[in-house]
């Protein structure tokens, strides 16, 4: 056991059992998986991505890139599984079951380690240079299997997620000393303050050090001050992951205390001001075998000793280029760990630090470096050399090699905000540059370090150098990128830092370059004899740390993923076995009403025949409905529609065609003139676009027009009774107006139908006598049921959308969504009769004039009669002059079996179709091509006498 007898913030009264790679261990509440493993003497955690080298724990935080594990289950949820979890941030829980990733059968005996032997053949970008013969997939399978880290879980987790919006004057990110001070200051000034922090308790790095400067206690007191708690909305266990436009910060909160049923909560925080207090992370030093288990950041070793009471080794060697590591040296020594040596790359380390070491009996070697670590699955020696002569070496035995290459301020969020970090010679690191948004950085993330040494001094050391030593010196651990890879990239003229990154994959591992990027930039700068500034950083992409898909997309699931809109008739439809389907604008409605045991096709045909011969009833409520008020409505409609509306009489409606300015169909529908306003109807899917179009014209271009539009789509249900018996159905239901005589086609009248106040219109989308009854939503279901009851003697049949489609194809009514396919203009669609080119202007007119100027072959709507009376051609089928030809002539837009004609029919767009009625054409489908006769696009009642009857 390497657990220290005393100290740490673990709870020794709460032992926790856990399993790693099938073996049971014990840790304590307050441990991370990493600290618990170290406490049990487990050093080898996994294998690297490419060479499968043995890897251990390097850090004590979220920047960890080696110690990744797979969770195989927890006590709460034995089926829970999660790949690529950092052992260093995974809170230990009882019953936690984890295993190593990317090695088989286990990290000790990993078959993939053979890659290490092949490594001379696998330099950076080797795959670009080989495997060109034959399909890449021949080789890719093996590469893919070797790549990837953890495994995707087999079953979904039983977790719930939440998305929440927050608004605050000040958002402080990080509850270390700098963040706490900033939050308190802001709160005292009267601002609303939200303070997010990724730890369980406030304090930041002070939680990890033993010897404070007095600040420690003060900050702890500050954090516990009840007055502070009132002023500040402090949200622990929350990582700010991205900084977006207009001071939007997204943060992930894990297992919030206020909602225990939530696993993760995704915050969208809008702040007037953002204060970044995210701290800094230590960086590794680059020497041969710097990836051996037991090679660890100095600050991490210190954290394990102080926070978790774990001795990460028994005999430590420190290798540093800066003064910050000495605090760790003292804490480890004081905890009883033997310090073999302190190797300081600086020629002249601070005297007081050397003296303090001496009093503890620790030797300091200035102007020296570790050029190599030895040992296979764990570090055994550090090979030490003088900087002035790297060939003069000696070995120092150790089982822990602590390194400190300096500190990288966490400028990620600053960079997400659009700002550019700049290089600061003083601390040999990138620090925040000029703010672009209302944001400022404080504390260590601003380069203002608060170490327990008097001063901070650093001698930039990007790599130690080789000098005959063989072996790999890593700049990116997880992706196995070495200094040799950088050399190769530069040699081949991949000189931009972005090229280096992409070619070698340095910085693209799951730590997003937090550990290695600074060293990569440093090495490149050194090789090209430039300053790190000139090299520049690669762009930091959000998120700061990886965010679970559950947190991002798990809040709205199942049927809530998209709104569903209902009509008042929806409950009736569901009760009566309707086959419901998507009908546009989030409405679901019946596509057909099958009788028990009936096929879909027969249900569709049965309803069509009922409409042609008797009566049908159709719920048209989803149609868009807008009231237009004001004296200038006629003027507006004349501009909106291709035809005239100013001469429409009160009580009458007219079919209109609305175009976009590019002359293509936007919508069609009937608009009525009422006593004191107008009522426009439009297609379900087009409604929101039409409303926007009208409001836009009125508010931007036609501001002189006095028109108000009011959306009444859901105010009015629309029940359509259709078929030759529809008049009789209404009469039988009870109606207080005369339905024949002067109630003509395209008229609308107020009436009382079956005791319900309504407006009745004679409009037809079926080609039959039809009455559309507009009733208030609250009355609609009762009215529907009354009409069904009244229609019983006439076998009134509910009609779904598919039947409606059959009826419109038989009649050759154009649908803007199908025949209007962004190429078709109204003339092509056979709607020229409704286009009044003599009007001075309407939206789209000038583009239609352009179309008429050009003599290019256009596609026209035609009808098709397939020669096989049994075969319904597929919608979308191509039209060809003869079988096997590639001379594309058009395509089928709508096709069905016509129960009325008892044969298949279709509508199509065909090049020069108007001139080709009577011709034969080949309809080319995926499975079958057949001949068809081109006809007029009207198959039934071409004169329209039935709907006017």
């Amino acid at each position, binding site marked *: 056991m390497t657990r220290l007898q005393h100290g740490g913030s673990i709870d020794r009264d709460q032992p926790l059992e856990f399993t790693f790679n099938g073996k049971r261990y014990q840790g304590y509440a307050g441990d991370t998986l990493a600290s618990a493993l170290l406490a049990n003497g487990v050093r080898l955690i996994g294998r690297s991505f490419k060479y499968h080298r043995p890897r251990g724990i390097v850090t004590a935080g979220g920047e960890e890139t080696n110690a990744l594990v797979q969770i195989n289950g927890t006590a709460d949820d034995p089926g829970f599984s999660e790949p690529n979890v950092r052992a260093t941030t995974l809170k230990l829980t009882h019953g936690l079951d984890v295993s190593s990733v990317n090695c088989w059968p286990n990290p000790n005996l990993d078959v993939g380690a053979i890659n290490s032997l092949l490594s001379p053949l696998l330099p950076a970008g080797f795959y670009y240079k080989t495997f060109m013969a034959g399909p890449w997939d021949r080789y890719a399978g093996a590469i893919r299997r070797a790549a990837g880290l953890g495994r995707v879980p087999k079953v*979904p987790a*039983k*977790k*719930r997620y*939440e*998305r*929440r*919006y*927050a*608004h605050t004057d000040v958002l402080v990110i990080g509850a270390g000393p700098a963040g706490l001070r900033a939050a308190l200051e802001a709160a005292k000034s009267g601002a*609303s303050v939200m303070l997010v922090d990724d730890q369980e308790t406030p304090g930041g790095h002070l939680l990890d050090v033993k010897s404070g400067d007095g600040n420690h206690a003060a900050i702890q007191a500050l954090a516990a001050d009840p007055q502070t708690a009132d002023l500040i909305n402090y949200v622990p266990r929350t990582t700010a992951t991205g900084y977006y436009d207009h001071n939007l910060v997204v943060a992930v909160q894990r297992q919030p205390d*206020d*909602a*225990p*049923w*939530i696993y993760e909560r995704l915050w*969208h925080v*809008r702040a007037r001001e953002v204060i970044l207090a995210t701290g800094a992370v230590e960086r590794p030093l680059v020497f041969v075998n710097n990836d051996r288990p037991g090679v660890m950041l100095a600050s991490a070793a210190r954290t394990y000793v102080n926070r978790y009471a774990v001795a990460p080794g028994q005999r430590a060697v420190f290798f540093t280029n800066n003064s910050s590591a000495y605090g760790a040296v003292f804490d480890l020594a004081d905890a009883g760990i033997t310090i073999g040596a302190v190797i300081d790359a600086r020629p002249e380390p601070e005297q007081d630090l050397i003296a303090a070491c001496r009093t503890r009996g620790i030797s300091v070697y200035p102007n020296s470096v570790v050029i190599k670590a030895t040992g296979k699955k764990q570090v055994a020696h550090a090979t030490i050399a003088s900087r002035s002569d790297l060939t003069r070496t000696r070995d120092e035995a150790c089982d822990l090699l602590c390194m400190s290459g300096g500190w990288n301020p966490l400028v990620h969020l600053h960079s997400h905000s659009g700002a550019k970090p700049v290089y600061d010679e003083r601390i040999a690191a990138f620090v925040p540059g000029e703010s672009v948004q209302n944001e400022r950085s404080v504390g260590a993330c601003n380069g203002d370090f608060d170490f327990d040494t008097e001063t901070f001094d650093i001698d930039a050391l990007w790599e130690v150098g080789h000098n005959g030593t063989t072996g790999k010196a890593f700049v990116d651990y997880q992706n196995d990128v070495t200094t040799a890879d950088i050399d190769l990239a530069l040699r081949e003229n991949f000189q931009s830092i972005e090229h280096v990154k992409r070619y070698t994959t340095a910085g693209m591992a799951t730590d997003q370059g937090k550990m290695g990027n600074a060293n990569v930039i440093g090495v490149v700068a050194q090789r090209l004899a430039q300053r790190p500034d000139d090299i520049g950083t690669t762009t930091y992409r959000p998120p700061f740390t990886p965010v679970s898909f559950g947190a991002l997309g798990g*809040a*709205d*699931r*199942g*049927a*809530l993923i*998209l*709104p*569903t*809109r*209902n*009509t008042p008739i929806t409950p009736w439809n569901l009760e009566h076995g309707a086959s419901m389907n998507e009908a546009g604008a*989030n*409405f679901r409605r019946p596509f057909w009403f099958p009788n028990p045991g009936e096929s879909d096709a027969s249900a569709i045909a049965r309803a069509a025949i009922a409409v042609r011969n008797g009566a049908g009833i159709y719920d048209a409520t*989803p149609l868009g409905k807008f*009231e237009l*008020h*004001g*004296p200038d409505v006629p003027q507006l409609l004349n501009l909106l529609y291709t035809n005239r509306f100013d001469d429409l009489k009160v009580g009458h409606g007219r079919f209109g065609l609305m175009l976009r300015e590019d002359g293509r169909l936007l919508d069609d529908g009937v608009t009525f003139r009422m006593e004191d*306003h107008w009522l426009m109807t439009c297609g379900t899917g087009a409604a929101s676009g039409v409303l926007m179009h009208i409001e836009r014209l009125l508010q931007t271009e036609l501001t002189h027009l*006095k028109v*108000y539009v*009011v*959306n*009444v*789509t*859901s*105010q*009015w249900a629309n029940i359509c009774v259709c078929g030759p018996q529809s008049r009789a159905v209404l009469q039988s239901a009870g109606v207080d107006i005369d339905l024949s005589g002067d109630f003509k086609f395209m008229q609308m009248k107020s009436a009382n139908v079956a005791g319900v106040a309504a407006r009745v219109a004679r409009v037809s989308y079926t080609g039959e006598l039809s009455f559309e009854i507009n009733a*208030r*939503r*609250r009355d609609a279901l009762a009215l529907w049921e009354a009409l069904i009851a009244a229609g019983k003697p006439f076998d009134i049949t509910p009609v779904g959308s598919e039947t409606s489609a059959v009826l419109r194809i038989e009649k050759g009514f154009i649908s803007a969504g199908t025949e209007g396919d962004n190429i078709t203009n109204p003339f092509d669609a056979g709607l020229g009769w409704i286009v009044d080119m003599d009007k001075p202007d309407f939206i789209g007119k000038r583009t239609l004039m352009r179309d008429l100027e050009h003599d290019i072959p256009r596609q026209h709507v035609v009808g098709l009669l397939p020669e096989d009376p049994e075969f319904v051609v597929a919608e979308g089928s191509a039209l060809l002059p003869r079988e096997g030809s590639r001379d594309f002539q058009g395509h089928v837009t709508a096709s069905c079996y016509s129960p009325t004609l008892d044969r298949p029919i279709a509508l199509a767009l065909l090049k020069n179709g108007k001139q080709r009625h009577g011709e034969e054409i080949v309809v080319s489908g995926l499975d079958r091509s057949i001949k068809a006769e081109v006809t007029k696009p009207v198959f039934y009642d071409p004169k329209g006498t039935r709907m006017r009857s």
Partner: protein
Amino acid sequence: MNGYRVNIRRLDDVALVNLRCSQDTAAQLTRKLPFELPTAPMRASESTEGLVARLAPDQWWIRTTLDREQAVFSSLKDSTVNEFAAVTIISDHFQGFEIAGDNIDPVLAQATSVNLNTLNDGSVTRGKFARSGGTIFVIEQSKRVQVFVESSYADYIEAYLASIAGATGSRD
């Protein structure tokens, strides 16, 4: 605990009359009508009929009970007969919900990105709500709001609110 403490109920006896006109016209109307049309943006004022709210530069809602729907409509209609204005009954176009309880803030903060911190009692605003749209009346800040949604969305929004309030079970 498996949910936030909120009560959600449908408001069934609410009639809505929509008025669109210019601010000047509204000022004239206020002199003729038994209730006042608020001039401040996003404010709802109490009247003998119910709340009267200003929702847009040229739009007001008069809330009343269903039995007063026709009377309010007619009186507005009569008052605007010579004006450029639109008076429309929209009671059925919308469905109201009341969301009340000690814990409504975390529920509302999931349903809408509108900053409700700034909306005190008597505020009214329209915004994105429960993946569609809603008109939110703040009756008592952090305690009670009333939200009107297009009635075709009502069933969906009711289910959505239940879900974000934590009232529905976990996914198995």
